[in-house]
Structure formats: structure tokens, C-alpha cells
């Protein structure tokens, strides 16, 4: 008798027929069996999800209620949250984060839309070339991109100051990353160049999928380009716009590596974002993990609220 036909239960081998799990399964209706089977297929993904997503979330929420460093772990209730809102550096970082989102997200979305509208009707070769150009900064590692930008922004050996001085546009070096008037704009420029790739790809695909007969009909009826875009193309790509806006907003809120590699939040916290501050608080001495987690929770709530507003704003157009 083949051992594969037997299962070990309570120390004794038994046939499938005697197995209590199999017996229970057989008692289920067909729809219940389908549900159980579906959940079994989902189980591996759910295990990963709970281990690497849900558990850290709960751990983060839990430890945000503690004065948790490498040296202590004391319950302080909402103490971290109370302290946050009297922390001028946190408030400055919050302001910078909102500024970054409010300035860069509309630029990213509008530029992507503009580039896509211009490109989507070009021939396949031109479209592919430009898609490649715009997508290159996305697939290139952030560190590599930042190293090149940092070299360009270098006040003494950088190409940017060199060109501007040679063209007599400036008389002395600009501290692009060390001057509060320029640092945030330097970050925004890099953020835009590294963020437009994906929206452009999505918009070109969405525009290509529009029903051309509607566009042709509108043109025959005398609609101009703007009217065609406003009344046919724009509603048609609204679901893509919603996705692009929400994802770009979330990514911008979580802007971290650019700040860490370029300015370390400086000068004088003028480019510090909440994500950067979370890192600095948790991983620089005195390693205030609980306090950093509280910042993370506040950031998540803010992102949630922003996303809710965006869903509400775009809701009527997408349905």
C-alpha cells in the first residue's frame, strides 16, 4: 500500500477517508468548498502579507506609545504624539513635505499629461525613444542619479555654476544644496525628472486605448482640439489620472533617499521631510524608535487624508 494515501494523525496513520479534515471538507457545500480552496491558494501570499506588512504595522503602532530607544522601553501613552506637535523641527519638516507635494505633484501630472498627448500619436519608433528617455531615470538607481546631480550642483567644481559663471549670469558660486533659497528647488527638480517616467508610460497607454470613433465623430461635428481633449480624452483617461495622482502623491510624501543623499535635511532643516526625520530620529543616536514610529503614524494619517480628498475630487469623473 502506498504511504502517500495515508496521513499521520495523533501518532497513527489513517486513510484519507478517516482524516477529520477531509471529513469536514466533504461536509461543506460546493460554494463553501470553493471559498476554502480560494483561501488556501491565497494562504502563501497572506502569510507574507501578515509577516512583512501587518506585523510591522502593528509593531509600529504599538511601539509609538513607548519611550523606546536602545536603552529603554517605557510606556508613555500618547506622549510621543504630544511631543511631536511642539517639536519645531517636526513642524518644519511637515511644512517642507506638504510644500514638496503641493509643488511637485501638479507639475509631474501636468508635464506627464502634456508629454503623453504630444507623443501618443507619433510613430512607434519616436514613441519608444521618448518613452525610453523619460523612463531612464526611473530604472537607473537613485544613488547613481543623485551622484550625478550632486556633482552638477557642487558649488566649486560643479558644471552648473561653471556654465552660469562663464555666461556671466552669476558672479559668485551658488550653494545649490546649502542655500535655503535653492535647496528645496534642487530637490524638486530631481524629484520631477525621476518621477515623470511612469505616469508618461501610463498616460500614453491610456490615450492609445481611447475609442477613436468618438474623437473622429466629434471632429466631424466641428469640435476643436481643446474641446476634444476636454470632453472626450480627459474623461477617458480619468481613472489613469486618479491612479497617477494618488501614487505620485504617496511617493512624494515618502521622499527620502534624495534628501538623505543630497542634503541630509539641510541647510538648517530647510529640506527635511517627515520621512527623512523618521530615519534621522530612529537611526541616529539616541535611536528614538518609538518617537520615529509616532512620526510614521502621523505621516500615514496625512497620506490617508490626502488620498481621501483626491478620491473624493476625482470620484464623480471616474464613475
Amino acid at each position: 500500500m502506498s504511504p502517500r494515501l495515508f496521513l499521520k494523525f495523533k501518532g497513527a496513520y489513517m486513510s484519507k477517508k478517516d482524516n477529520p479534515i477531509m471529513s469536514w471538507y466533504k461536509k461543506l457545500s460546493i460554494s463553501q468548498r470553493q471559498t476554502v480552496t480560494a483561501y488556501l491558494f491565497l494562504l502563501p501570499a497572506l502569510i507574507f502579507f501578515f509577516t512583512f506588512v501587518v506585523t510591522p504595522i502593528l509593531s509600529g503602532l504599538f511601539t509609538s506609545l513607548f519611550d523606546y530607544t536602545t536603552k529603554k522601553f517605557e510606556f508613555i501613552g500618547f506622549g510621543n504624539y504630544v511631543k511631536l506637535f511642539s517639536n519645531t523641527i517636526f513642524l518644519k519638516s511637515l511644512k517642507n513635505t506638504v510644500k514638496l507635494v503641493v509643488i511637485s505633484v501638479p507639475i509631474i501630472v501636468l508635464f506627464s499629461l502634456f508629454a503623453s498627448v504630444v507623443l501618443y500619436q507619433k510613430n512607434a519608433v519616436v514613441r519608444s525613444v521618448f518613452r525610453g528617455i523619460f523612463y531612464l531615470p526611473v530604472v537607473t538607481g537613485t544613488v547613481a542619479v543623485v551622484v550625478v546631480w550632486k556633482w552638477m550642483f557642487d558649488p566649486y567644481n560643479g558644471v552648473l555654476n561653471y556654465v552660469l559663471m562663464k555666461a556671466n549670469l552669476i558672479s559668485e558660486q551658488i550653494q545649490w544644496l546649502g542655500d535655503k533659497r535653492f535647496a528645496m528647488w534642487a530637490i524638486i527638480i530631481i524629484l520631477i525628472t525621476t518621477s515623470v517616467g511612469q505616469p508618461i508610460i501610463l498616460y500614453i497607454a491610456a490615450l492609445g486605448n481611447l475609442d477613436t470613433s468618438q474623437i473622429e465623430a466629434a471632429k466631424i461635428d466641428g469640435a476643436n482640439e481643446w474641446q476634444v481633449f476636454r470632453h472626450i480624452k480627459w474623461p477617458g483617461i480619468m481613472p489613469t489620472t486618479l491612479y497617477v495622482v494618488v501614487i505620485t502623491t504617496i511617493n512624494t510624501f515618502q521622499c527620502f533617499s534624495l534628501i538623505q543623499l543630497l542634503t541630509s535635511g539641510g541647510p538648517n532643516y530647510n529640506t527635511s521631510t517627515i520621512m527623512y526625520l523618521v530615519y534621522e530620529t530612529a537611526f541616529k543616536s539616541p535611536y528614538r524608535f518609538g518617537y520615529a514610529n509616532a512620526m510614521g503614524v502621523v505621516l500615514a494619517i496625512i497620506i490617508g487624508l490626502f488620498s481621501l480628498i483626491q478620491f473624493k475630487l476625482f470620484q464623480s469623473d471616474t464613475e
Partner: protein
Amino acid sequence: MKKFFVLLMTLIMSISLVACSSGSSATDSTPTDEVVDVEDITTLEAEITWWAFPTFTTVDGVSGKYEESLVAAFNEKYPNIKVNVEMIDFTNGPEKIVTAIQGNTAPDVLFDAPGRIIDYGRSGYLVSLNDLVEETGLLEDIANPNILEASSDGETYWMYPTSAAPFVMAVNKTALEKEGLFDLVPSEGDRTWTTDEFIELSKKMQEAGYYGVEIFAGGQGGDQGTRAFITNLTNANLMNADLSEYTLSEAAGVEALTLINDGVKAGWLAANTGGVANDALEHFTTPTNSTFWAVALWSPNLHSARQEELDASNIEAIAVTLPSKDGSPKLEYLVNGYAIFDNKDATKIAAAKEFVKFLSDDEVIGKQNVLATNCFPVRTSFGDLYEGDENMSYYASLTKYYGAYYNTVNGFGSMRPFWWGSLQAMIIDDMNPEEAAVYFDENANLTLDE
């Protein structure tokens, strides 16, 4: 319902990015006192992990190759102790160590400097090395008592020191000679000079079209360079004598910051509020659009590491002490050493101690390792390892100028962002020098109680 689910997922994903630390704490940690009893220690069986910053000179330009060769040499004597080497870098290494500590995956041996090591020791993560220091006779053999002081928190030795070297500054001899101004640089004896002499030369080099000492304030990389350079200008003290309080806001400290601010505005000093020491060193050794005649951070190991760039740029750099008001500087210094993490396994701890002893005190390997750091041995018994090398003899002669080692005070790591933060704030005119000094002291003093 779908939208609610999407929003919920958004919230969950956002939190998950920042909520990934475990719940362990230092208070759970109790150092292991268990003793391993083996007749012949060379027969001890264990597997340990060694994390090293790239302090040793690389072999064939390959990071970790030299460290692997040390393990091979160790295994000839201790064949049953397996050592896994992992190289960590100065940018992400400190965070990696903290993450490993929190995840109970800390290495057994760490090669680092006192600033971080003493902090780990105070937090209860390390094994006391008092026994090792006594057993190996280091106390009697030490070249400078300051080094031992730097390796302990006053009660326990958390680091086993092996080599040390002073931080000084360097000048571009080639440029100075070209401008006929090299005679204004102290080039004899201890090469000390006064602040007035330095300012006079700075202004003359500015007139000749050169950039002066770069005040970098974009991060903590090499920030000890700006601290020592600035405080020496007016003989100010960053901390009081018993290292219990930061004192930059005293008259001499404010005077020093004022001098820096004036120098930057007048152009005989160069500001780089977005850069760190590495940028200043690169500007000094590889000038492209701008030439700097001096750099505020230099050491024998930096000199060695940057020699190739200097040669490519046809620059001869020479080390001089930092300028000070009275011509008698207080220098900061680098100490390299080993720490052993308490991973609750007496056998691993015993093996780690043997490994540290071998790397530090072995007749051949010990000296070889000191040379590989381009620093000086902490043991007098190692003698002069750089006999006949005039350059290294000069660095070795500066021991007498070593100042108080404050890198081991409580909260040292937390103080550093306030140092470069206050410099940044002053240079970009967010604060005047006095406000910057007060801001630094107020915040830095809070870190002492961490």
C-alpha cells in the same frame, strides 16, 4: 466598500514603511559571565562574525580582501574558529549595526572607533574588555594614556585600541610656492602657527585667486575637522574641563564663530553648507574649476588614501597643525579598535577575544595591521614602525598636542547634528554667531543626559 479597502491598504502600506523595528530593548541584556574551560585555547571550536569598516588599506583595490587574509592567518593558529568577514561602509554601516542590534543579529567582533563603540557599551550590548586589557599588559605598554581614556566610559573598557593618529590640516605647497607665499607657512619643527598668521596668508591667497579653508556643514562626515579648526582659532573650548557641559557660547567660542562668519562673508574662507569633509578633500586634491590652498581635515591615513589624486593633480600637500590664538593647538585624534558584542554565547565571546588579541597583539599581524591603517601603534613595545619616514615622524611628533577626547561623552552622536546645524544656520544667516553658539550649547547639553 472597495474605496474604503483601497484607502485602508494605502494607510497600511504607508505605515509599514516606517514601522519595522522589533520590540527588543537593551534592558533585557545581561552580559554573559560564563567561562569557557578548554585545555588548549587554540582547539576552541566556534563560528564568529566580524564586521569591519574599510579602515585597512585595501589589497588590489578589493574591499575585504585584506581582512580575509587576516582570517586565513588566524586560522593557521586557530583552525577550529570560523570567522565570517563582512565589510560595512561609513555611510550606512552605523544604521546597519543599530538594526542588527535590534534584530539580535549583531556581529561578534566590530572594528570601529570609540564614538559609537562606547555608546554601544553604555547601552549594555558589549562585553567588558577589562580582562583583555589587563591580561595583555596594554595598561603598562600604552603610548598615550589619552588613548586608554578614549576606549572606556570611565569604568569599563569597551574597546581594545590598536592604532591612533592625529587630525591636522594640509596646505597646497605647490600653489603656495607658485605664489611665492610658502615662507608664510610653518614648515619647521612642529609646524605650529597663530590665527593671525593664518588669516594673513588666507587673505593673500584670496587675492591670488585661490579659495581658502572650506567650512563644510552639510552633514556629520568629518565634522570633527571643523570643530577643531574653529575652536582652535580663538583657543575656545567646545566642552568644559571635566567634559560635563558644552561651552561654545562662552566669549572665545562666539569670537571663533564670528571669525568664521566674517571670513566666509569676506571670502578668505570658503563655505560649503551642503558638503561634508569628503567634498572638501576632493576640492583640495582634485581641483577642476576652483583651487583650494588648504583643507581643515587631514591625517596620515587620509594623506595616504589621497596621494594618487594629489599626484594626478600635480599637487604636493604638506601637513601643518591647526592655527590657534597662542600657537599651541589642541588636536583631535583618531583611535581604531575592536569591540566584542555580547551575543549570549560564552564560546563565541572567548573565540572573539582570541581573534581580537591575534589581530592586535600578534608579533607579525599586530604590526602589519597598524601599518595597514596608516596610523601609529598604541603600544610602545611596537617601536617606530615608520623609521626613516620623515612625513610619518612629523605626525608621530604631534601626540603632545592631543586635546581632551570628548567623543565618548554621553550623547556624542546626538550632539553632532546640532554642530553642523548651527554652522549651517549661521552661514545662511538664519542665526548670528552668538545665537548659533547658544543654540548649539542648549541642544548639545541636553544630549549629555540621554
